[in-house]
């Protein structure tokens, strides 16, 4: 069902964990759907310096958050906001049809973390 790359990320997920003093946190999904992700980012000079996450979900969900954390690290906020679920699915070599929604959640979680960072920044600026 899953590509080798997906299984690789599932077996050895990168960047798992929590950032206690995160600059932005994004939580998506809910246990009812069977997928839930929380993404933590640390931003310095407009660049995602560090990114960690926690995931409750299937093989695809875990692989997607692992992949997106790898892809987002070192990107500018603007570049990271442009990362789409299709980018993640492509980088993983494709996902089964019924698992595409997992990749949507991964991108959403990252974007939500970024939005959280931006709104906090705006709050401070005021």
């Amino acid at each position: 069902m899953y590509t080798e790359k997906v299984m690789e990320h599932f077996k050895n997920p990168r960047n798992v964990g929590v950032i206690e003093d995160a600059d932005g946190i994004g939580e998506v999904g809910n246990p009812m759907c069977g997928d839930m992700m929380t993404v933590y980012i640390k931003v310095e000079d407009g660049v995602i310096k560090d990114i960690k996450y926690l995931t409750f979900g299937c093989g695809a969900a875990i692989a997607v958050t692992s992949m997106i954390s790898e892809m987002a690290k070192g990107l500018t906020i603007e570049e990271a906001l442009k990362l789409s679920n299709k980018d993640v699915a492509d980088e993983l070599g494709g996902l089964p049809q019924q698992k595409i929604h997992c990749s949507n959640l991964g991108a959403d979680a990252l974007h939500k973390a970024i939005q959280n960072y931006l709104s906090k920044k705006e709050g401070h600026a005021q």
Partner: protein
Amino acid sequence: MNRIYLDHAATTPLDPRVFECMEPYLKGKFGNPSSLHEDGRIAKEAIDRAREEVAALIGASHEEIVFTSSGSEANNLALKGVAFSYMNTNSNIVVSEIEHTSVLHTAKSLEKMGFEIRHVKVNKDATLDLGSLEKSIDKNTILVSMMHANNEVGTIEPIEEISAVTRTMGVRLHSDAVQTAGTIPVDVNMLGVDLLSMSAHQFYGPKGIGALFIRKGTRVIPQIDGGVQEWGRRAGTENVPAIVGFGEACRLARLEMADRVRKIAPLRDELIRRITTEIEQVRLNGHKERRLPGNVNVGIEFIEGESVLLFLDMEGISVSTGSACTSRALKASHVCLAMGIPHEVAQGSLQFTLGKDNSIDDVNKLMEVLPPVVDRLRTMSPLYHKFIRSK
């Protein structure tokens, strides 16, 4: 490395003795049972003998057994076969919420044809609520369908009590016995059923063959029209090798059932004991005592079932899960939800179903692998982190 197979609810390995019986009918004894010559007669005698064995397993007469391609087809024949006599009448059919999809989806089709379908609720342990059943039946009820045991959580239903109700109210009773026939004692007269579905590959017989017991005097409209096989109730040249295999599986089940249960049930209980004591925040799904001898279904909180299944698969262990991710429709197990199990726990439900060839070594190996997998997935779970912080 030999794999450890713990998914007997999905299917079972073909018993070598069953294969031996089938082999001649895959080779030289290839006749069509409807043919009048010797080749046909040999095949006809073989399926007659098999039919007697199938009937004997469930306490029926041979002319009450109709062979089908599967348990699903038997379920279709039971529901549609009865319903079709009542087209364009104000009839209703009563089914439990936890039936197999081949019953539930057949009921849905009948609903589109104009029948009213009434679903009866189950209790937290998946046993049928008898009070609700009585309330669902009225003078327009033409059939009640209640499975003998649930394939997911293993709960064995009180069919005898249910048939007492249906008999009193003059309604026919069908029971999907796919998970019980050949595994625990099933007697159509003790159970009091009018129709009963069976499937060979659930008890070491071949895939592609099932049967519907139709009590003498019960009218069933054929769903596959054509030749006069199965006394005109189900057309199609008989799958002779599979029928022969089915018969042998039934014969062996009758002889060995007590020994098999004596072997498997303690393994099941040991696995339940170990999982519930060695892993925290775990619950057993289904009835504690009235359950299939090989069924272990547990809800493991804070993690999702497919990810556990993948890790166990990598370690050579085959299991099943009720999580939404593993269903095409992305819906969590309808059985777990009907039992009132919260969604997130249903997502973490794992099913281990033991068979006659499993051993305590298999249980021990599983318990070597499972707890670390659970820990690993919990460490990366936002739900688990929330739980720890709340303590």
